Structures are given as structure tokens and as C-alpha cells.
């Protein structure tokens, strides 16, 4: 791999582009981090670019005074539940799509593919209707259910792709042993589609953690507020406290950033898997 002929000839065009991009990404991230470490008055007088004369952690502490802890907990509950639902129902579905016989299952697969083309934005009004009718308005479960449903099409596609890569010979070997579908699923399909499974965990977790639209229209209380909604409310209510606001932004991405640091490969491959290879 390392002796590729074009490896000796660097791609200057792409290299230059990457430096420009580094500035475009790096500068805002620098301002984001440095602003959270200065006081609000320091931010307004010195401006966002200069390095603050005095560093403080008070912005982070006040974020927790503003209820960030509760938002964090709610987001965690939503994320864990969404990933749980997806992991519970999508692998059996994908297994059936790949292995079951009959017309019904291919209709089902088409319905899920159709779901790929439906943006969540398009259904917020009827979703509000359905969730209110079900008595789930302003409950976390009312956010969890639609979020899980809307991450299913992509997860199904990714996982069926992974399961198709399992060679028929392996199924036949297990069939000769007289294995039940459940045993095949547990001992063959699940272990051999680990890559696909981690992709759908990454994808559905990111969807849930960063989700904004469903919480925006389906909740209203502080007790059911998730982080993204907290950021939005914070901005509309105390938009002038930029260091406070940006501290909440940093805190909101912290868990994902930790995953990114320690499992960058899994995360990146997960996202790549979602886009298709």
C-alpha cells in the first residue's frame, strides 16, 4: 500500500485546499474554546480573537446553575433509549430482509427505503398531532419514539448491506447442523456483522444526541428539555452572555468528543458506512 506510485507526488491542489480548510475550521474552534475561558465583560471589551488576560472556569459552573445537568441527563436518556430501540428491532429486521423468503418482506424493505426520502421536517405537524393524541406530548418518550423511527431507514440499509456480505456457504453449514433461525442469528449473523452494528450505533446515537427538531416541537418544560433545546433557549433568552452560551456548546459536544478521541476510527468508519462505500 505504501509504495503507491502517486504517493511520491503530493497533490498540491488538495494540500492547499486542506490548509485553507484548516484555518476555516481551526479559527472558529479556537474562538469557541477560548471564549468559554474568559468573563463576559472581557469578551465584550477584548473581542473574541485575543487571548484573554485572565482565565476562568466560571462559565462552565454557571452553565450547570442554568440547568445544564438536567438537560444532559435528558439527552442521555433519549440517546440510550433510541440506540436501545434501534439495536432491538433493526438487526432482526435486517436479518429477515436478507434471509426471509416471500413478497411481504421485499415490500417491507421498500417501505424502509421510501423512508430514506422522507425528511423529518416534513412530518413535524402530523407528528405533533400523533404524539399529542397519544398523550405523550412533553414526555421524553414522545421524543424517543419518532427519533428512533427516523433513524431506522438508514440503519436498516447499512445493516442489510453488512449482512449481505456473509457468504451463503456459512448459512448452509449451519443448516446442515440443523440450526434454528435464532441460533443462526446469534452465532453467525450478529458476530459477522459487528462493523454494521457499530455503524448503526454511531449513527443513531449521533442523531439522538444532536436531535433538535422533535424536541423543539414535542416538549416544552424544563424537566424534558434536551441539550440542543437548552442551547436554543439560552440564546433566545441570554444571547448577550456569549461565553456562557459557548460553554454550553462545548459541554454539549463533550461526550461525542471523548468518543471521537478514543474511538475515532469506529466513529469515522461508522459515518462512512452510513454514506455507503
Amino acid at each position, binding site marked *: 500500500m505504501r509504495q503507491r*506510485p*502517486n*504517493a511520491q*507526488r*503530493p*497533490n498540491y*491542489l*488538495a*494540500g492547499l485546499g486542506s490548509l485553507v480548510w484548516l484555518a476555516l*475550521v481551526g479559527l*472558529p*474552534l479556537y474562538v469557541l474554546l477560548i471564549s468559554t475561558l474568559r468573563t463576559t465583560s472581557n469578551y465584550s471589551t477584548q*473581542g*473574541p*480573537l485575543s487571548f484573554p488576560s485572565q482565565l476562568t472556569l466560571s462559565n462552565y459552573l454557571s452553565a450547570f446553575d442554568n440547568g445544564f445537568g438536567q438537560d444532559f441527563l435528558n439527552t442521555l436518556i433519549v440517546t440510550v433509549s433510541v440506540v436501545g*430501540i434501534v439495536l*432491538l*428491532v433493526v438487526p*432482526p*429486521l435486517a*436479518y429477515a430482509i436478507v434471509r*426471509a423468503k416471500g413478497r411481504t418482506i421485499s415490500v417491507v*424493505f*421498500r*417501505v*424502509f*427505503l*421510501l423512508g430514506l*426520502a*422522507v*425528511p423529518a*421536517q*416534513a412530518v*413535524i*405537524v*402530523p407528528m405533533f*398531532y*400523533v404524539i399529542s393524541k397519544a398523550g405523550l406530548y412533553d414526555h421524553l418518550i414522545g421524543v424517543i419514539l*419518532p427519533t428512533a*423511527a427516523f433513524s*431506522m431507514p438508514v440503519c436498516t*440499509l447499512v445493516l442489510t448491506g453488512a449482512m449481505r456480505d456473509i457468504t*451463503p456457504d456459512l*448459512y448452509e453449514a*449451519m443448516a446442515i447442523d*440443523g*440450526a434454528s433461525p435464532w441460533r443462526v442469528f446469534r452465532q453467525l449473523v450478529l458476530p459477522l456483522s459487528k462493523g454494521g452494528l457499530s455503524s448503526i450505533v454511531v449513527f443513531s446515537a449521533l442523531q439522538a444526541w*444532536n436531535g*433538535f427538531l422533535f424536541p423543539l*416541537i414535542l416538549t416544552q418544560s424544563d424537566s424534558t428539555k434536551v441539550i*440542543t433545546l437548552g*442551547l*436554543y433557549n439560552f440564546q433566545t433568552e441570554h444571547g448577550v452572555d*456569549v461565553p456562557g452560551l459557548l460553554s454550553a456548546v462545548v459541554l454539549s*459536544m463533550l461526550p*461525542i468528543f471523548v468518543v471521537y478521541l478514543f474511538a*475515532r476510527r469506529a466513529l*469515522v468508519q461508522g459515518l462512512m458506512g452510513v*454514506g*455507503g462505500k
Partner: protein
Amino acid sequence: MSALSFTTELGRRRLKARRPGVGATRPGFAWAVPATVFFLLFAILPLVLVAVLSFTSWDGITSPHFNGLANWTKLFDDPVMTQSIWLTLVLTVLGVVTQTPISILLGVWAAGHQRNRAVLSAIFFVPLLLSATAVSVLWRALLDPNFGLPGQLPWLFGNGNLLGSQAGSIAVLTFVGMWQFTPLHALLYQGGARAVPQVLYQAAAIDGAGTVRQFFHITLPQLRNTMITSVILMVVGGLTTFDTVLILTQGGPGTDTTVSAYYMYEQGFKNFDFGAGSAIALVLVVVATLISLAVVRISGYDKMRSTAEGI
């Protein structure tokens, strides 16, 4: 919808892949039931309801009641609606045009083996980790005319009040969209570029083709399928732009950046006219589906066997 024809193709391939004699260990349809019921209830049912609700008048509190075509006639006479469709299309095209070249360059670069590549690409992809909300909140603070970057970099931002004009607001929305989504698409292209057979480059190098020619004659054509996936994602994403508009411009100044998705939200959840909101939503679904279908048709994506499992 967009995927119907290539689904048929998938179905055909699956039939071919089947082998006789192993039926006993195949799972039954029951395995698919929980996911299907769940999906029908919380995704397909709302989709059907959006069409029904577009023929009703509903304030969100009392029960909806049918009012025939009232929402639709109102919608077609509404200049803000017509404008919102144009704005949405403009933003979508600008998004595709700005994000595609940059993400191809970044992706191809990240697929290479340069020194420092690992460290740099770790930084490049950080915007992926931020929610759309966080990105919008961050840029709104950064672009604040009084306390943000414009005050410190007047040579770059002019009078500084970018969000005060329509052109400025559209530029900001396009830029923030690019900042937020380019990493994802670059990642797709990185995956695509890694999958290009090395033999092609070796052959080209023997023929004396330089890096630039290799890029245009091998890398780009080989990335065609990735490009289709990426463009469809950008189009659907662009047509449903909402979070950035809500947080950065609130559809303003005036209604200058009131895109369709935002207009729908405003009609429904601010003016409590959920019937009108549903009608706009239905327009969005139809337009998004038609465009996806068109991209699939024009590109011949539905006829490509090798990539049928792509997106």
C-alpha cells in the same frame, strides 16, 4: 419513492443470490414485525396524515376539521410561499455548488498518505461532532456585528452586519451549511477514493499521467457513484434547511430568508395554522422526492448494479 427502481434491482439480485435447500433455517416474516410496526406508526402514519391535515383547518388544540382546498388556494396566492420555494432552491443549489468541490478535494486528500494527514484530518472533521444547533449558535455569536469577529476583522467583513441584508444572510447560511456539512461529504469521498483500484493509478503513471491528470481522469470518474449519493444527501438536506435559519436569521430580515421548512414551522407552531403548515410540508415532500428521482434517473444510478447497495 426515489429508490423504487433500484429497489427492484436489489430484489432481483437477492433472488439470484438464493440457493435452494437451506429453507429450513430461514427466518420468518415475524422477525421483521416489530421494526415494521414501529416504523409504520411513527414515520409512515405521520406522512399519510400530513396529506390529510393539509385539507383541514387545525389550531393545534381543538380537533381538525375539513375545509377542502382552502389551505391550497391560500398557499398558491401567498407571495411569501412562492418566495420561500425560490429561496429554498437557491440555498440548495448554492449548498451543492460550494460543498461538492471542497469535499471532493478534502476527501481525496484525506485518502492519501501524506505526512500530518492523520493529525490534520482529526481537526478537519470536528464540525461533524457538533449539532446543527451548536453550529448555528456558535456562528451567530462569531458573526455578531458588535462583539463578534466583524468588529476585529473589518477588512474581511466590511460594515459587519452580514445578517442585515438578504444577500448577506444567504451568504451566511450557505457558508455555515458548508462549514457544517463539508466534513461529512469529505468523509464519503475519502471512502470512495480509498476504494479506487490502485492498478488504475499505476497504469496511468506508466503512461506518464501526472497527479492532476490522474485526478481528473481516474479519481473523479471513479467517484461518480459517491458523488450521486453525496449530491442526493445535499439536495434533501438543502430542501429541508431549518435549524440554521431558525437560529441565525429567523427567516429575516423581514421574510428575506424564510425558506419553505421555516415557513411551515412558522405557520404551524407560531401562527397555529397547522393546516397551512401541512400543505407546505406536502409540497416539500413532493419536491424532495421528484428531485431525488430526477438525480437517480439522470445519473443512471438505478441501472448500476455494482453500486446498487451504495446509499
